[in-house]
């Protein structure tokens, strides 16, 4: 069974490494995000959100749904810690 699991892990890793080959290079100016998404944020941030810090406007406005998920993850982690650590002996 352990041999089988090892081969499944090896196969999954191989598929992932094969997939990495198709990813654009680091900072490639011709990749899809660099051509469409990033220039849009850089040019329109002040105009659309009145926020000079681009990171904040992307984090909280353009990618607001993602940040809501992050906050939910932190909340869930805290509640799980409390459930595990709390003891009501009194």
């Amino acid at each position: 069974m352990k041999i089988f699991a090892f081969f499944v892990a090896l196969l999954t890793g191989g598929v992932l490494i094969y997939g990495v080959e198709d990813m654009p290079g680091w900072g490639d100016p011709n990749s899809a995000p660099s051509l469409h998404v990033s220039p849009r944020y850089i040019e329109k941030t002040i105009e659309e959100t009145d926020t000079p810090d681009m990171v904040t406007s992307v984090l909280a406005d353009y990618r607001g749904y993602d940040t809501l998920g992050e906050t939910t993850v932190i909340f869930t982690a805290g509640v799980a810690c409390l459930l595990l650590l709390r003891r009501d002996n009194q």
Partner: protein
Amino acid sequence: MIVQYENVIIKTICRLLIPFIQLFAIYVIMHGHYSPGGGFQGGVILGASFILLVIAYGLEESRRRMSLKALTIYASVGLFIYSGIGAVCLLMGGNYLDYGRLPLPLSSIPTIRAMGILGIEIGVGIGVMAIMICIFLGIASYETGGENG
């Protein structure tokens, strides 16, 4: 368990330092539009100031000021502010978290969006602060086998 440690230097320094740490945390949250910072970072700094209070003054003394129940409520309130702002946008006819639709008495849409960003940063800050203290208090009071919060 963290017991109260009778050292006047530590207590005095903490008493002097904690208000400024909290002020800096609020600055980091509020100034996230113009400099590195925001809800997560400011919330962690705010939580660290309370953790410093617990370390300096001991667990029993600190429990009079904060309870786990209240902190859990704070964490929920933080998340509720975030998702509530999104829901208000939905009710006003926009998309979820489309801050331009918030009913604020401001002139331009970009300014309203900036205020919406500030609102969710405050929500994130409250939530992260409460969760930080919750985890610390949970671990710190684990050995005592009881939590009266």
